[in-house]
């Protein structure tokens, strides 16, 4: 049990090694191996959930080991309410992803090997509590992603792959500078928990180039994370990458990789620079607003279904940002409105999870129709509801979930984000409620154009969604509905950790040296 985190992270690697030794023409064996590896990993995360003590919001199942003593780098793993749901989500989506990519026929061996490597990378980021380790895993994701998009992607795949790579690398280089800055200003340690303790005082009044070090480091790290989220000016890699990537990879991209950004901001920026939170939260909310409106409008204009879903991610992550900004509500300056802070932060974290499941669902469904019609042009369909009712029904549910309909988890998290941020950023929140309308507009309009009207005679023999595909979608749908009707289980996991974060930020912010 004390090594469970190790197992969770490294299990896919074991699978990868195994696959490396399987002759490449035994494709089914390879697929099954991948399925087993990810499946077991998923089970392990469930075990973890079972044994997780929700009442205690701090790190649990910590694993510590010397790594590079000469640089005070160590191998630290841990899980708390913030990372546990993300870990479960990662494992689940990777498991599902294996089946989504069951029909891959090109270089199966390489595909699944890289897929598992990616899995480990993502899981590692969520579970590592050492900043250096965090960075390593963060970068480990890039390479498999590059290949998975670049080799198995769509027509523009090479461009998309390298663009994704460059964007992210640019971000992580800045991040590295920030990390080193923290290392040397905060007593030469990468231990995140240690840093959380030390950094707030250590950074006080430190000036770089006439700016407070807090601001500089915050910006450096924030850009690194913002590119992943993606926050408005750094988002243009996303539609391309999503559109070109194979379905399973789009699922992981939207489902998990985007969460890494938010996770990073909450874990690192919030944890290490409480003052920065106060300094930046307004901007955060504003960026959230821009994401919501910009993404919504862009989605409204798309004719490529996958691009629409991609932009909807930009839009949905905006809610998360707005919710995160709400944390300052708990501060002295804003009347110590703990309710709002909890609502906002909880909403943001919940929204991460929900968007993970919902957008994954959407991408899988897009993949389903693409496999059949071999195009994604919204205008090019029409009347499919009569042809493939089950698919229509599921898509309808997915779309409704996407437009934040009560009864689906998305509604709760969005509502919480709004309610939380409202006391502090009234104007921004009111403006961003237009996003609710935009969501409905682009989803329903797309839905109408694809499924309603007379059946397009080209598609009179379009096959209905098959069992395998159902197997990939339905679990996500169930989760979405379950948490939409009864969110308590999720919020119970995160609640105490959220309190810790809020308390940490609010109590350690000293407004000096800003």
């Amino acid at each position: 049990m004390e090594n469970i985190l190790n197992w969770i992270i490294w299990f896919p690697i074991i699978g990868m090694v195994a696959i490396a030794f399987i002759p490449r023409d035994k494709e089914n064996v390879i697929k099954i191996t991948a399925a087993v590896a990810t499946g077991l990993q998923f089970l392990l995360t469930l075990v973890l959930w079972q044994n997780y003590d929700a009442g205690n919001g701090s790190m649990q199942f910590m694993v510590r080991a010397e790594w590079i003593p000469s640089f005070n780098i160590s191998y630290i793993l841990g899980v708390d309410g913030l990372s546990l749901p993300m870990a479960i989500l990662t494992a689940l989506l990777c498991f599902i992803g294996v089946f989504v990519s069951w029909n891959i026929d090109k270089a199966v061996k390489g595909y699944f090997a890289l897929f598992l490597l990616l899995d480990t990378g993502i899981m590692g980021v969520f579970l590592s509590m050492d900043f250096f380790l965090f960075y390593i895993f963060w970068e480990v994701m890039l390479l498999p992603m590059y290949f998975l998009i670049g080799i198995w992607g769509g027509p523009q795949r090479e461009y998309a792959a390298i663009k994704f790579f460059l964007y992210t690398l640019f971000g992580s280089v800045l991040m590295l500078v920030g990390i080193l800055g923290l290392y040397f200003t905060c007593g030469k340690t990468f231990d995140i928990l240690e840093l959380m303790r030390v950094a707030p005082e250590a950074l006080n009044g430190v000036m770089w180039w006439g700016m407070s070090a807090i601001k500089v480091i915050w910006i450096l790290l924030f850009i690194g994370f913002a590119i992943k989220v993606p926050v408005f000016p750094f988002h243009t890699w996303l539609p391309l990458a999503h559109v070109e990537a194979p379905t399973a990879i789009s699922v992981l991209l939207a489902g998990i990789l985007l969460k890494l950004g938010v996770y990073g901001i909450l874990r690192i920026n919030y944890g290490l620079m409480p003052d920065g939170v106060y300094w930046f939260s307004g901007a955060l909310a504003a960026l959230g607003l821009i994401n919501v409106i910009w993404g919504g409008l862009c989605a409204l204009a798309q004719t490529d279904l996958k691009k629409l879903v991609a932009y909807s991610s930009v839009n949905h992550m905006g809610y998360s940002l707005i919710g995160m900004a709400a944390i300052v509500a708990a501060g002295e300056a804003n009347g110590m409105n703990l309710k709002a802070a909890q609502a906002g932060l909880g909403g943001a974290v919940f929204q991460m999870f929900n968007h993970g499941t919902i957008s994954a669902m959407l991408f899988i469904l897009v993949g389903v129709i693409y496999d059949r019609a071999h195009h994604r042009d919204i205008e090019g369909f029409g009347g499919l509801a009569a042809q493939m009712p089950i698919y229509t029904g599921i898509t309808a549910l997915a779309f409704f979930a996407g437009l934040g309909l009560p009864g689906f988890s998305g509604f709760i998290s969005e509502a919480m984000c709004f309610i939380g941020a409202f006391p502090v950023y009234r104007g921004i929140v009111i403006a961003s409620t237009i996003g609710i309308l935009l969501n409905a507009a682009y989803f329903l309009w797309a839905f109408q154009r694809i499924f309603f009207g007379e059946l397009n005679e080209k598609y009179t023999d379009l096959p209905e969604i098959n069992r395998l595909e159902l197997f990939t979608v339905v679990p996500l749908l169930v989760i979405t509905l379950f948490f939409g009707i009864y969110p308590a289980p999720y919020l119970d996991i995160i609640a105490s950790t959220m309190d810790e974060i809020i308390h940490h930020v609010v109590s350690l912010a000293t407004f000096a040296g800003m």
Partner: protein
Amino acid sequence: MENIFINYSLFILFLPLAAFVIQIFFGKRLPRQGDWVSVGAIIITLILSIAMFVAMLMGKDPNFKQEASFTWLDMGAFSIQLGFLVDNITVIMLLVVALISTCTHIFSLKYLEGDIRYSRYFAYLGLFTFSMNGIVLSNNLISMYMSWELVGVSSYLLIGHWFEKDSAANAAKKAFLTNRVGDIGFFIGIMLIYTAIGSFVFGDIFEGVSTGMISGTTLTLAGVGLFLGAMGKSSQFPLHIWLPDAMEGPTPVSALMHAATMVAAGVYLTIRIFPLLTPDALLIVAYVGGFTALFASTIAITQNDIKKVLAYSTVSQLGYMILAVGTGVYTAAFFHLVTHAMFKANLFYGSGSVIHSMHHALHEKHDHESDPQDMRNMGGFKDKMPITYWSMLVSTLAIAGVPLFSGFLSKDAILAGSLSFAQHHPEHFLLPVFGFGAAAITAFYMFRMMFMTFHGKPQMPELINDIHESPKEMTGPLVLLGTLSIAIWYILPHFNPISTHGSWFTSLVQPVTAVVPGNLTAHSIEEGAHHAHNLAMGISIGVAAFGIGLAFLMYLKKVLSAERWGNRAGFMYDWSLNKYYFDENYDKYLYQPTLRLANKIAWIDWELYDKYFINGFGRVTNWASSVAGKFDYNIIDQILVDGLGRITDNLGNILKKIQTGKLQNYLLYVTAGVIILMIIQSF
């Protein structure tokens, strides 16, 4: 005994949901596509509602109230309680919903017989009933908002039932989006209230308001926000545009949702939140309602589609109710809600049965051009379908406000309320004018409809022989609701046909004083209404008579030519006929601009920002692109498209030229380098 209300409510709430689930998953496989499941479920619901109703009557307690809540989610400080609130209003509303819903189910058995998505249809009806009851029962804003949206969805699904028709699909989308506009207001209202009071439960909210935790402009805004939601659902001006289009749905659906219950949800909400509405908010409410009432009725005059007439009449009647709430007599509003539910649903069933037989007749004739809903194709059906005729006539008399019929009583109460309000505040004399004007016009167009449909000589004689009375699944509800449109039911236990004073309704549903300081007390409103009662009654009878008479002369006796009057009215006639060009203008000034904006933004995002800014620092220099042309589609090239890359690349291009391959150039460079360094260093 105490908790039976709550337990019953639980069943009432979840039975339809169960039916919905069963239908969705197994509907197709069940015998008769499982319609009996839904019908059974709804009938049980009806029985339970009646039971509760009776219990309430027995109780005779005007302040009866039961609440039950549970914690839905809890993060420590932030938590949400969901729960039931059962009082007299709730019980009556539940009965109405259950009753109309049952009628609709039964009516639909025949009306949608053989429809391709028969089971789906019943499933959605179940979903609707569930969410409607959700609205009725909830004791807090969150669950109300959730049910609110679910109602919107079920209406989306039912309007779009025949989605092969683009018009239906569009109408469905329009309905949902228009409602969402209202919902945004609703949600902002919720946030304003929660931020101030920290709870979503009505009880806490009213308490908070009375203790002044929220007041003044904020409170007004909150009230208006919530009312915006009501405007969306109850299709008040200017969000009324969706309701007429919603008639694309099957007629029973129109009866259930777009006449009796769903659209009434807005009114219900306004009644629920009445105590926290500030005078300003109330004024806004009143004006919106009053204006809608008049405005919609003027459109109804000229419509020829029988369902469109009813649709606009619905909008106008809802305006009445809103007006009533605005003027403080929200009991009257609720009263009208109930009566209107009965007769308007009935009218829709009637039109449904007419359309049904028209449809069949046309089908016989293989005529697919003529529109079965166009009154200009009807006429003289009176003898062919007597039951339909008589029941519709009763309802028409009711809605026209003729004494002895339910509509008279409720309308009268409303008009009295507005009149007394005007007496209190003479500057708001317009409100009663709206009311009475609308009353006159209503009487006119309703009878116009009746005459055009049932009297006179058939406009399409070749059809008349194929017009038959509808089967009893359809006539049954007609008769039932027709009966319920007679005044007698509402004045019990007394028999004073012109006043509800002392009736079970007024004794059970009594106005409560608004918690907002500065509002008129319930008592003074009551007094005023009572004093204005007789005057109002006189005027309303007068205007009703005038309207009916005009219709009689114009469409039955034909002594006045509708055409000539229409031409005389000139542009007003066109405006009315074209619904004041609202859809056109919204399309022109709202939807299209938004889409254009969206496209522009997307273009900026993709073509401009990405290609030129992110990819394009180097784009500014045109010669860069020629450089890019040198390499074919390889990474460099893509990087070239990629901006920073472009600069770097040009740089590289220049720099690599230095590497001439000529040895002595190199030597020269070295020397130059040394010298330059020396120069630099000596600074």
